[in-house]
């Protein structure tokens, strides 16, 4: 068991190696803005180890139509039903959990609206699973974690599935801004020349100044505000890490972002009619981010619990999702929930088709955990929640339907598969039986 200091050094070395290998280029930083200009991932050489090393936590709001006749859970023979049909092409890569309860820390059911962080294990805990995971493995990445949303901002508060130290963490809904933060607004390969090392050094100064200012501020504070500033300081240091790692790195490009948003989608926060396009862009960005080793922990929020999206391409294209669920029209609920499964399928397929630096399918080294805040969306129940695990390659016994008493145990399963069970707190009852090969 390594000491914290040793762990930090190791993580830091891994981090430098990762970003070096990923080829975070100084030249790139010179481009647009300090953080947004991080054109990353040039080198094809291996950085980290093989095996399962990344997790995508995917929140699909409002459960599924499962009460009475369960229209999500496949049969024992893996015959898919109404709302899981779209996963046909990837079902062998998935484990579908049955009789799963959306539960709190103690195993009591807590499904329903509000306190959405329940989806990622937040009830009874200070932070959700994705946050704890990022704490454990995030230091080794240029971006310890990402939170990408698709219309994830519901009315009223508490609509985010992620929580850190008791505070809601909101997701980035603008796919363009999310991409730019990671890859720069130029977005294309080929660095910019220029006085890059000068710019590097001077930008390091900004970070130094902010660190000094935060230290000075901290001295006059009570503990709540001090922990706020500690987070702030971490954020500044993370940028500093990226800057340091990017100094003097050049290399051939292998992680290309060309082709992203080829239709030049322009985002508008008030135009809610383009859910599909936004979802696909965010998922494309996720795949790229993993491929380029920019991060290993991604959280995606596919809508929000208030469910006000309308999907123009559906038959029921003039009802928002909420009304689909509660309006007494089971077919509307089914069609919309199936649509959401299509988006999930898109993600899994994209991961499957993408290759990592070892030439392996990204899906083999990634776990996708689909979670929710409810079992049946119409009655806000806790039981029979549509929880699913995809990916993991041969380490996972995929293509099955397995019982999992609590959804929180699926997170524990992920910790086990990543080999971080001793670093991340237990959320449920430990790994679900029958998942790990």
């Amino acid at each position, binding site marked *: 068991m390594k000491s914290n200091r040793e762990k930090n050094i190791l993580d830091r070395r891994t981090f430098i190696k990762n970003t070096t290998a990923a080829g975070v280029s100084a030249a790139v930083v010179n481009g647009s803005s300090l953080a947004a200009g991080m054109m990353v991932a040039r080198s094809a050489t291996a950085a980290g180890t093989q095996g399962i090393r990344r997790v995508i936590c995917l929140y699909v709001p409002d459960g599924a139509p499962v*009460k009475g006749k369960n229209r999500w859970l496949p049969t024992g023979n893996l015959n898919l039903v109404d709302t899981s049909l779209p996963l046909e092409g990837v079902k062998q890569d998935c484990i579908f959990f049955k009789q799963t309860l959306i539960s709190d820390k103690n195993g009591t059911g807590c499904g*329903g609206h509000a*306190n959405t962080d329940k989806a990622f294990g937040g*009830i009874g805990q*200070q932070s959700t699973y994705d946050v704890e995971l990022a704490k454990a493995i995030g230091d080794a990445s240029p971006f310890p974690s990402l939170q990408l949303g698709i219309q994830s901002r519901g009315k009223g508060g508490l609509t985010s599935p992620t929580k850190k130290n*008791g505070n809601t963490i909101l997701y980035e809904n603008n796919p363009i801004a999310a991409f730019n933060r990671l890859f720069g607004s130029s977005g294309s390969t080929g660095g910019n020349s220029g006085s890059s090392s000068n710019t590097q050094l001077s930008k390091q100064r900004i970070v130094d100044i902010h660190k000094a200012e935060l230290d000075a501020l901290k001295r006059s504070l009570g503990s709540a505000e001090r922990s706020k500033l500690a987070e702030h300081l971490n954020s500044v240091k993370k940028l500093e890490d990226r800057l340091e790692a990017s100094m003097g790195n050049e290399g051939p490009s292998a992680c290309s972002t060309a082709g992203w948003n080829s239709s030049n989608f322009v985002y508008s926060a008030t135009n809610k009619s383009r859910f599909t396009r936004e979802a696909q862009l965010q998922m494309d960005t996720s795949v790229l981010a993993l491929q380029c080793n920019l991060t290993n922990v991604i959280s995606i929020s596919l809508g929000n619990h208030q469910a006000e999206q*309308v999907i123009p391409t559906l038959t029921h294209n003039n009802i928002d999702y909420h009304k689909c669920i509660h309006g*007494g029209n089971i077919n509307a609920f089914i069609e919309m929930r199936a649509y959401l499964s299509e988006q999930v399928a898109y993600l899994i397929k994209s991961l499957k088709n993408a290759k990592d630096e070892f030439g392996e399918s990204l899906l083999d080294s990634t776990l996708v955990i689909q979670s929710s805040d409810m079992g049946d969306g119409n009655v*806000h129940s806790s039981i029979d929640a549509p929880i699913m695990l995809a990916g993991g390659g041969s380490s996972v016994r995929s293509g099955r339907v397995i019982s999992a008493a609590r959804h929180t145990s699926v997170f524990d399963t992920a910790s086990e598969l990543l080999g971080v069970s001793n670093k991340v707190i237990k959320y449920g009852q430990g790994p679900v039986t029958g998942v790990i090969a």
Partner: protein
Amino acid sequence: MKIARYSMRMIVAAGAVLSLTACVGEPGNASSAAPISSATTSSATPASSIPASSISSVASSAPSSQTPLTGDSVRGKELYEGSAYSCINCHGKTGQSPLPVFPNIDPSKSELLHSTTGNRIWGLAEYITAFMPAPDKCDAQCGADIASYIETWVSSGSSSSSGNAAEVCEVDSVAYGRRQLRLLSRAELTETLKDLTGYTLKPVDLGIPNDAVVEGFVNHTRSFVTQAHYDSYIAAAESAAKYAESKDFAGIIDCSAKNLTQCADAFTANYASKVFRRPLTNEEKNRYSSIITASANAKAGLTFALHAILSSPNFLYRSELGVDVATIRAQIDDVNKTRQQPTQSQGQQKILATLEGASLGLMNATARRLNQNQTYGKNVKSVFPFSNDNIIVVRAKGAKVGGKWPILELKIDGTSIGKATINKDTYAQYTFKVKNLNVQTGLLKVQNIRGNGSAEKNRFVEFTAIKFGTPATTTTTTGPSNTTLVAKPSNNIDSDAYVLSQYELATFLAYTFTGSTPDNALLNAAKNWTLDTPDNIQKQVTRLLNTEKAKTHFGNFGAQWLHADNILDVSKDTDLFPDFTPQIRDAMAREIREIFKTVVFDGNQPINAIFDDFSFLNKPLADYYGVSGPMNNNFVRVNNLNTRGGVLGSGAFMAGLAGLDESSPIKRAVSVRENLLCQPLPPMPTDIDSARDDAETALQDFIDSQGGTITNKQNFHFLTKDAPCSDCHREFINPLGFGMEDFDAAGRPRSKDANNLNIDLMGELIGTESLTDGNVKAFEGTMGLSQILKDSTQVPRCFVQKGFRSVMGVGHKYYDHIAQDAPDLSDAEKAGYACALSKMSDAMKSNNMNAKAAFEALGISDVVRYRKLY
């Protein structure tokens, strides 16, 4: 008219029937529920087969011989308040139920009866286990824990409190706000960057994270800077810096005639203190100076310095940390001492009589010569009336001989009044003081005496005039005439309190009243320490409220309060409503802001005027509504609209709180309850016990029975008529919402719906002050409801609460009533806030219920100036 219904304050022991289907979970899904101890369940009846309404078979097992378990009240509180059982939703935080269908819990009762078990006496823990929230949901340990928690209410005396204890405001008590850092919101950051650099930030494009919203208002009192935040701030600062560079830093600094050091000094002394909203310390100045001085040129240096300073934590956080009371008192003492420092002012000497020319006996000569040892004498009593304090000034020059200058001595009546060395060969004035000399004869003798040097006849003095007068006086004054002493915090401020510094207060006032950074006048007021008393602060508040910025800012407050911006992204059926364009949406968002703004700022209107039948429309919106008057794109006031108008009858309210094709009586009713009346409804229950698969069939059957079409009202009634939904819908939501059905989903009045069915206008507001007061007010249509709200005393009360929350970043009773991780407020904190609220209300009452008065009262109140670490 009070509704006759069973008593709201039912005591369980009276044996009344409880509605067990309300707030109830599924009747035991055996695989998921916690294991049930055998003592409480009848092994004969498997839990899953029990229909909710039939309890007797479970209750027939009598656990009266069960050994009591030890309850853990801490765990019990978690269970009581947690979302698994949600006892708190139905029974209230300390047993005061927000709903009439649920009895209050009397924590001192240890013997309970239940209607289905005759005379059998239950202990509290057993009762909970057996019946709450449904059989087999909460096991024996769970029951014991919750019972143990409920028992703690007795010792805290909450059984006797109505939950309103915090609303009593003690006279002379001081209210303390929270000591905190607040991150700038998206809007604040945008306005501030605009004011400081001219740059227009597009937060969504740059990935500035969404604002945290608590209870409907933007609230960054607990937000921290995540990596996404920091990356975006860096990007924003860089963009702003580049913009400033492109404009040659106009409005920021002019370094064209300065070298790098001078430029750096000017930057850190002036502009930087505007960014930090306070003067910089020397350390801080050095950091930014060295950026500039190390750069190739001023342009590069300034761009870089701006990039750094506009993403600095000292810029990003509004500080409400304050200075501890003792230090502030000492600082004020220093300032006051400086203001009282006596200053010496030199008056001028006054010459009252002169001997020169003829009166000096000079005919043709210009000067009288005195060789060494020579004397000039004259009786000067008639020339000048000597008093106690006089001067004699001699205009003379001398000749230096043998290395020495002549010495002049004056005597009056034989008394020497002084010697002076005449040490110039050009004329100069030599002054002699005559003090306290009783001049009798008045014989003046002016003699060129021999000093220490050799006797030299030619060591002469020549003089041209002898003047007599009064000396310059030294007067002592106590500082500049317009100085007042700074008021110190009064003695009843607690020693563990903090006082906002002048600059922090300036910042608070600026963002509260204008939504942006303090202007020069405010910063100067802080510098001169004139934000020290309520009266002085009021002057600034009044000034700020008169700005255009303030009007826009309060328009946005109104929009948050009324959730107006739903209108911008709510989905609509474009086939049904083809003229509901983005322009109409924008116009509606503007309309409701203008309605609110005029009531706040124009004249001295009461807040409830927001319900009058007027509006602000431009031509496109007027055409959309079928109203005449407005001629172009400018928004103008239109009165007497009759069927629409006010915030309720506005597009943003009606179309924003509606679905794609039909209105949403539920959303509208909930909005009235929660936003206008401050009557929060319990959250939707979880684990609703209904087989919803049948709901669709039942609904279709009903529609068929009505001839194939039903109204929106019929639809929503049908979907909510059963327990547990009906507990809230039947009284608090549906009658209220159904009375607003005279507005369609696109915000226009109607008497028939899309299926040509008549709209039933009748509605009822049940619970006019609090949800459970039993008052009922019937009304007809939206404007009927508007009239009720216009007369309501609860609306202004609620407005004050919302205003307080928006400004202070916390509610007066809670931070967030649903979030599991929300901090609790202590009784002392709540008591202070109650006082602040009553000041706001009193100010409104003294000002025709005008909204501005409430905000002014808050701005000058002690809850703003004095802070504590809660």
